[in-house]
């Protein structure tokens, strides 16, 4: 067995140096068996409490530095590299004068004289010995379990074998559908293998999930291409020297070039047991992590404490503090046992479970399901206390529930609504910091690294940290699996108040998400998401239904991405766009009919005059956009006003919309002695071609008949200045808050070209700008050259943009007023009831 063979690992040059300088020291000697997560964490805690107290030697069976074992799954899935998961590098051992014998397991203990013996023949004295030998994967001894290609999932070597195998082999069978098995299966399938999971129980992860959540998980993993066989009892692993398949007791068989056994772990107690230390399932320890020999401590997955063994890191952080207290001679309260919670590290699958959810006598369930969003939540309550929680699909509130489980909070006042989460519970949706503000200082924020709120806040205030990157570097919070990143960011924001500038790069769209506009746009298209709830679900929104900032933005992005297919969501529209009129300060509305390019007629003016009389409209005003505004109309009258205007041929002017507003023109060749082209006529054509189109922000155009530019075309989003030889096309002007003159895009010779460029430009703006970004800031951001590249240098790209614009216009040019005058959305305009 490799355990006893001498390791081929060559020693790092400084190892002997430390050895030489330290043998002289008079300090008590601490030997740690196991260079894994628990042993080294204890050492870190000890160095914090009592640096330089011990002369420390660490033996590690693996020929490696101490690494973050839980990140093996992301390595397998190709999301991280080995370098990313090293917890303590050589420099750390050196700086702290720690002698490391990596690749050299301890094989014997002389308790009487205080020595350990290693496989490489070392004999090292100790005053205190710490056993941190972890656990070993269980291998079910079915026939064939020793064949080549049958492996477990415990250490870096296993991961290397899997990555290597995936490159050459086709079929993988994973035996065991628990946490580890599924992470292995997911990883192998991302590496391109065809993966079958054989699971004995009737649902997946039966120790962490109930049947409902287990079923949702199975469906999701099947959608991702895994084959999952439940109630599968393995009978035999078949093949020659190398594995070829797996056969079940019911006779079914599955081809396999690689078999991963992930059926559970067993505390690694061999060393303790064979030297007479008290062991049960694990090495037995008291609250101070002391074994039956007072000079020997044990910690981590190898121990049994109050009859329980643990297989996760969170309890280990608590144990490490207790063990460090003992070694430092300070008396802490010791280790009291841990409530545990679980997450599955499969990207995009959100599940959380914590506490005891087995149900049973005296317990009650609170269940919430939203099939459309794929959300399932179950809270188990016993005597007004939350004792367990299973969350699938929406796990944002996991830490909140888990804290209540740990604290034994009396939940009777929250009972009715707590299943909707902390946001609902505390009306906190509008205050993004409420959730973190309310957590106690010892609430654990980062489960992977055991970092609590108080530690992060102290690091921020005392270390002057201002960014996520700095907090990661200083505290390790959010540096492992990353699922607490949102929480950590909130905590930074909360601690620094206005001093917090989110990490470099564009700002998040709003408080409901960490993603910026660009990412949201890209992901909607990349993932083919076609409605708002799915965006919130897939992109992990932190609020159940967004807010007034993100809903309109997401609605627009969907509208733009899926023309003709996406069903506009009125509930994601600002009032003006929802009722197609501008709300005024007194709650009345203004109505601006389209007056094509500023040209009107007696018939239109007469109809306007008539509605003004008929509905007692208090103000009639000519706007800055060459048309007429009717102000002060009561909401209940809107549809009737539109019916009358519509009868005279008038349509909505979209004065309320993030859409085409006006096309201003001058009189041009028709009348003006300087006119070079038919600016009025071209304006009318442009407005007819582009009205009704929804855009990131409002969009204004103008056509001037000569360079005197009476229509102010050089401060419009798209402006045309006519000249003798054709048309100068201008883009990105703004006459509003920050006046910006246009950039000249190019010059064309015909009206048709001018219209083609106009449509292509609008479509490019529609597809690329962020919601509420007008063309001027957009062009400042991306640069005019980027626009010229697409529109003038590349005629094929321009035509494609124009065609996509035409496609989207097919559904956009229905007059919204006409539809509503005919009864659409009637509930928007009428009160529910009038009383009294």
């Amino acid at each position, binding site marked *: 067995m490799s355990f006893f063979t001498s390791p081929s690992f060559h020693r790092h040059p400084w190892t002997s140096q430390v050895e030489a300088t330290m043998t002289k020291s008079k300090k008590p000697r601490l030997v740690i068996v196991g260079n894994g997560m628990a042993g080294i964490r204890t050492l870190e805690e000890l160095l914090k409490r009592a640096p330089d107290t011990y002369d420390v030697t660490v033996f590690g069976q693996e020929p490696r530095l101490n690494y973050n074992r839980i990140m093996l799954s992301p390595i397998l899935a190709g999301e991280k590299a080995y370098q990313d998961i090293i917890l303590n590098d050589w420099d750390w051992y050196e700086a702290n004068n720690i002698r490391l014998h990596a690749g050299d397991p301890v094989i014997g203990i002389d308790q009487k004289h205080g020595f350990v013996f290693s496989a490489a023949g070392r004999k090292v004295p100790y005053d205190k010995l710490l056993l941190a030998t972890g656990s070993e994967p269980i291998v079910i001894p079915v026939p064939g379990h020793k064949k080549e290609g049958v492996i477990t999932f415990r250490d870096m070597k296993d991961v290397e074998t899997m990555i290597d195998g995936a490159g050459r082999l086709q079929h993988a069978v994973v035996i065991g559908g628990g946490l580890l098995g599924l992470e292995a299966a997911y990883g192998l399938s991302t590496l391109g293998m065809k993966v079958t999971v054989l699971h004995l129980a009737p649902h997946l992860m039966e120790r962490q999930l109930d049947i409902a959540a287990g079923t949702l998980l199975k469906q999701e993993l099947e959608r991702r291409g895994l084959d999952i066989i439940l109630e599968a009892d393995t009978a035999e692993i078949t093949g020659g020297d190398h594995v070829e398949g797996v056969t079940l007791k019911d006779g079914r068989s599955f081809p396999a070039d690689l078999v991963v056994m992930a059926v559970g772990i067993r505390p690694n107690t061999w060393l303790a047991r064979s030297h007479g230390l008290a062991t049960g399932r694990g090495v037995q320890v008291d609250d101070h992590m002391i074994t039956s020999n007072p000079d020997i401590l044990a910690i981590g997955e190898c121990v049994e404490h109050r009859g329980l063994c643990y297989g996760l890191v969170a309890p280990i952080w608590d144990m490490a503090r207790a063990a460090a207290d003992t070694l430092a001679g300070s008396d802490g309260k010791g280790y009291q046992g841990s409530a545990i919670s679980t997450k599955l590290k499969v990207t995009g699958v959100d599940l959380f479970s914590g506490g005891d959810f087995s149900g049973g006598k005296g317990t009650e369930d609170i269940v919430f399901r939203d099939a459309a969003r794929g959300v399932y939540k179950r809270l188990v309550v016993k005597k007004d206390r939350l004792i367990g929680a299973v969350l699938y699909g929406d796990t944002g509130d996991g830490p909140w529930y888990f804290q209540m489980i740990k604290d034994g909070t009396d939940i009777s006042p929250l009972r009715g609504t707590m299943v*909707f989460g902390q*946001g*609902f519970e505390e*009306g906190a*949706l*509008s*205050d993004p910091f409420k959730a973190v503000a309310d957590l106690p200082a010892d609430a654990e924020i980062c489960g992977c690294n055991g970092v609590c709120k108080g530690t992060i806040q102290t690091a921020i205030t005392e270390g002057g940290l201002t960014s996520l990157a700095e907090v990661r570097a200083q505290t390790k919070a959010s540096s492992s699996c990353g699922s607490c990143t949102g929480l950590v960011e909130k905590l930074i924001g909360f601690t620094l108040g206005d001093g917090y500038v989110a990490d470099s790069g564009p700002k998040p769209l709003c408080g409901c998400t960490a993603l910026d506009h660009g990412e949201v746009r890209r992901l909607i298209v990349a993932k083919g998401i076609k409605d708002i709830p799915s965006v919130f679900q897939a992109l992990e929104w932190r*609020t*159940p*239904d*967004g*807010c*007034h900032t993100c*809903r*309109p933005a997401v609605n627009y992005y969907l509208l733009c991405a899926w023309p003709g297919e996406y069903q506009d969501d*009125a*509930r*994601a529209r*600002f*009032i003006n766009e*929802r*009722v197609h009129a501008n*709300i005024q*300060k007194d*709650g009345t509305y203004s109505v601006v009919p389209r007056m094509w390019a500023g040209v009107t007629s007696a018939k239109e003016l007469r109809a306007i005059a008539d509605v003004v009389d008929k509905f007692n409209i208090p103000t009639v005003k000519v706007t800055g956009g060459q048309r007429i505004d009717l102000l002060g109309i009561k909401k209940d009258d809107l549809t009737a006003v539109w019916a009358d205007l519509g009868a005279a041929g008038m349509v909505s002017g979209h004065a309320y919309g993030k859409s085409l507003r006006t096309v201003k023109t001058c009189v041009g060749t028709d009348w003006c002695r300087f006119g070079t082209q038919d600016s009025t006529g071209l304006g009318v054509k442009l407005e007819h071609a582009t009205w009704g189109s929804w855009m990131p922000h409002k969009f204004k155009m103008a056509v001037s008949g000569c360079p005197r530019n009476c229509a102010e075309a050089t401060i419009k989003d798209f402006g045309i200045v006519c000249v003798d030889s054709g048309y100068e096309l201008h883009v990105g002007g703004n006459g509003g808050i920050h006046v910006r003159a246009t950039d000249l895009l190019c010059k064309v010779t015909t009206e048709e070209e001018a219209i083609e460029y106009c449509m292509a430009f609008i479509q490019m703006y529609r597809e690329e700008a962020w919601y509420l970004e007008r063309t001027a800031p957009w062009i400042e951001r991306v640069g005019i050259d980027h626009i010229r590249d697409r529109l003038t240098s590349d005629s094929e790209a321009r035509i494609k943009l124009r065609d996509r614009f035409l496609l989207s216009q097919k559904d956009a040019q229905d007059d919204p007023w006409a539809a509503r005058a005919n009864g659409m959305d009637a*509930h928007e305009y009428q*009160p*529910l*009831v*009038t*009383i*009294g």
Partner: protein
Amino acid sequence: MVKASTFTLVGQRDDIPRLGSRRVRTPAGEIALFRTSDDKVFALRNECPHKKGPLSEGIVHGHSVTCPLHNWVISLETGEAQGADTGCTGKLAVEVRDDGSIYLAIPSGMAEAAVA
């Protein structure tokens, strides 16, 4: 002192779009009824504590509504402005029966007679 109020049938829950709102008109002013995504119904006086903006026209999210005039966020549960803004608009009790009918507690004096 709170005036006595009577529960009055004002309509059905399905008359209000989810994440939307409807107005109830009374001689003493409008009341806005809101329906949230979790199907709760809330009632507030239809006047923003800032400058009387009609809250019924705002965007509903979570248990809050954003006023259409200057974006104050008002809690539907308490009528109070959230975040840095302060102010409160009146909240009325509502009851939704199992069949979806909405009963609104209209303070006496706000309504003479009820029309259902």
